[in-house]
């Protein structure tokens, strides 16, 4: 008896494997795809080489005055000499260590929260959220316990942007959650109040709200009471973003099946306990992408405080580009600003993706 053996398989044609095969499948699969690829390549060729030339190869990197910018590319000297102003605004130079220390403490203090093996994480987190703002206020503003006062009119640069964004997030999240719960409440009066609040703030642009903070808020408050300009702006940012947070959280609350509410009630939990222990943990986890999107929007929106004359990061750059000694540096200035904003926003969106994957319990369809 002869045993039949198959011949070994022929290798696939060389045009369908490897780099060539990939290119055929992904770039040149049909005549219009070929056309699109060529068009795309032309676009890349049009944008990328001049950009690299301008930003890197033909740029000036070292020097201290406008005269040092002799080459035809970008003049990064401008950014270098103004860097401190972009970061701190008019914060007194000899006191800038306080800002640095506040930033370092924020990072060091928050780091344990990202460790997996950290015990008592919740307790530590709550303690941190209470202690750090006080500490930061003491360091940045001062005025007691041996630190000199730095009035908020001297705050500026990236530091101010981050302060507004951080206060905005820290204030808008709890307020937004309360508003969302109020909007889903069984009590009609509470519901009406919350809906009115949310829809009003969502219907008007932030700029008009900031205008309102500078021209109308002083009218609303008693005469002797004079709120700080920055504080007024932050208050408005918190209210404005809280309305958006509330709508995102409401989406999460609506997505929780009714059985969860009923189960919590059946366990004998009251309203607040069932919300805090059962509903909100699930609802907030569902809406992480939406919340982070809101926070990214908030970070971008902080740039609008330029309207009421606060010197945030963007305004510091805008002001520096109008300096007679550095005229014609707008492109460099705004490209640098775009890069910084982009790093923050892109970082946040990547972190939210990571968090989403980490918290995914596999219940999603």
């Amino acid at each position: 008896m002869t045993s039949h053996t198959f011949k070994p398989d022929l290798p696939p044609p060389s045009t369908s494997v490897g780099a060539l095969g990939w290119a055929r499948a992904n770039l040149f699969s049909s005549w219009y795809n070929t056309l699109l690829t060529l068009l795309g390549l032309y676009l890349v060729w049009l944008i990328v080489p001049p950009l690299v030339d301008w930003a890197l190869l033909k740029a000036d990197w070292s020097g201290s005055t406008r005269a040092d910018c002799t080459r035809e590319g970008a003049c990064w000297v401008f950014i270098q000499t103004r860097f401190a102003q972009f970061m701190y605004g008019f914060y007194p130079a000899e006191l800038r260590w306080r800002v640095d220390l506040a930033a370092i403490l924020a990072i060091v203090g928050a780091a344990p929260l990202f460790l997996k093996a950290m015990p008592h994480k919740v307790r530590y987190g709550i303690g941190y959220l209470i202690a750090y703002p006080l500490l930061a206020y003491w360091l940045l503003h001062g005025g007691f316990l041996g630190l000199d006062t730095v009035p908020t009119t001297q705050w500026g640069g990236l530091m101010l942007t981050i302060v507004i964004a951080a206060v905005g997030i820290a204030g808008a999240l709890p307020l937004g959650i309360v508003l969302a719960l109020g909007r889903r409440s069984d009590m009609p009066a509470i519901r009406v109040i919350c809906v009115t609040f949310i829809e009003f703030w969502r219907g008007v642009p932030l700029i008009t709200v900031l205008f309102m903070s500078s021209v109308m808020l002083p009218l609303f408050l008693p005469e002797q009471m004079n709120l700080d300009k920055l504080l007024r702006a932050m208050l408005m940012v918190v209210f404005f973003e809280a309305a958006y947070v509330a709508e995102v959280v409401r989406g999460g609350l609506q997505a929780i099946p009714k059985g969860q509410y009923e189960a919590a009630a059946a366990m004998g939990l009251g309203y607040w306990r069932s919300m805090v222990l059962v509903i909100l943990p699930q609802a907030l986890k569902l809406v992480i992408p939406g919340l982070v999107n809101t926070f990214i929007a908030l970070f971008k929106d902080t740039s609008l405080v330029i309207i009421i004359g606060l010197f945030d990061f963007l305004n510091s750059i805008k002001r520096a580009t109008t300096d007679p000694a550095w005229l014609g540096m707008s492109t460099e200035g705004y490209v640098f600003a775009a890069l910084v904003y982009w790093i923050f926003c892109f970082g946040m969106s990547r972190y939210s993706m990571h968090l989403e994957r980490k918290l995914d319990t596999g219940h999603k369809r």
Partner: protein
Amino acid sequence: MRTTLDATPARRSLLSDPKARAWLFQIVAVVAVVAFGWYLFHNTQTNLAHRGITSGFGFLNNAAGFGISQHLIDYSESDSYGRVFWIGLLNTLLVSVIGIVLATILGFILGIARLSSNWLIRQLATVYIEIFRNIPPLLTIFFFYFAVLAPLPGPRNSISLWDAFFLNNRGLQMPAPSAGEGLWPFLVALAIAVAGVLLLYRWARARRHATGERFPVLWSSVALLILLPGLAVLVAGQPFSWQVPELQRFNIRGGWVIIPELVSIVMALSIYTAAFIGETVRAGIQSVSHGQTEAASSLGLRSGQTLRLVVVPQALRVIIPPLTSQYLNLAKNSSLAAAIGYPDMVSLFAGTVLNQTGQAIETMAITMSVYLAISISISLLMNWYNKRIALIER
């Protein structure tokens, strides 16, 4: 073991009764809100009295006395604040409408490009979206205004195109049409052509439903739209006479001017919003199950037809609600124009008029209600459209 069943329920305090508590909470909340409102009102009254400001909308009839760089309706400095309101409103609407149209076109192209089978196109669209949605729109506006348009040459050294279009740091100057002798015949012919196209479309659809035969609607419509007005022009003469801008000693006079503020804000807002619309469109198209595409290709539809006849109509239902909120965002973001001095609602009313009259409450109330009204109209319009295209389930 002995158990006792207490027949009478334990005496409960009124506070532990859910209904009573609900009432209590609501009364407390309403009283707090009313008290807070009254407190604000009272403060405002005293503050206004101290500053000697009389409230009311009478100031709207006073002469404004300042110039406006762009007005779609006639305006002079002696006109009233009321007219300034209409100019601001029209300018805001102009930015919003142009922005929405451009952002929608660019956004749909981006969304489809992100799903392209072509790797390079997909990557280019992704890079665009990731760059522009992570940069504040105000920064993009500043970039166009201060870094791109401001360094353009002055009027004397304008970049000129066929000696009719001039691009300089005061904007884009272009020929302005004014009514010529053949305007009316031209307009009538155009109206007839449009009506003809609509009738043709309905007839062709009815015929296709009845017999399955196709009629080349697109080509015949184009022919109709070119032929009829063209004929009118040949018979009755030119519909428009063009007023071409002319270079004078210091400036360019005549024609229409698109001011650089308008260009920067429209470009920045459409580029920014298009990135978000692109993602919305991609998500919508991806939500249409792959089986639909396969079914369409097994029916023999080509990929363009599949997209147009099968995928997009189903995807639109998912796309419309988030698209609405993008439109709303764009309309609200048009207020960023105030930062570069484009004469929109905010910079005219909450800016100049407020500073001149000191009527803070009235001007802010007017400005905010305009945006509330715009927001509500857009969402009503889109809700109506959404209902129209919603899936009719059997």
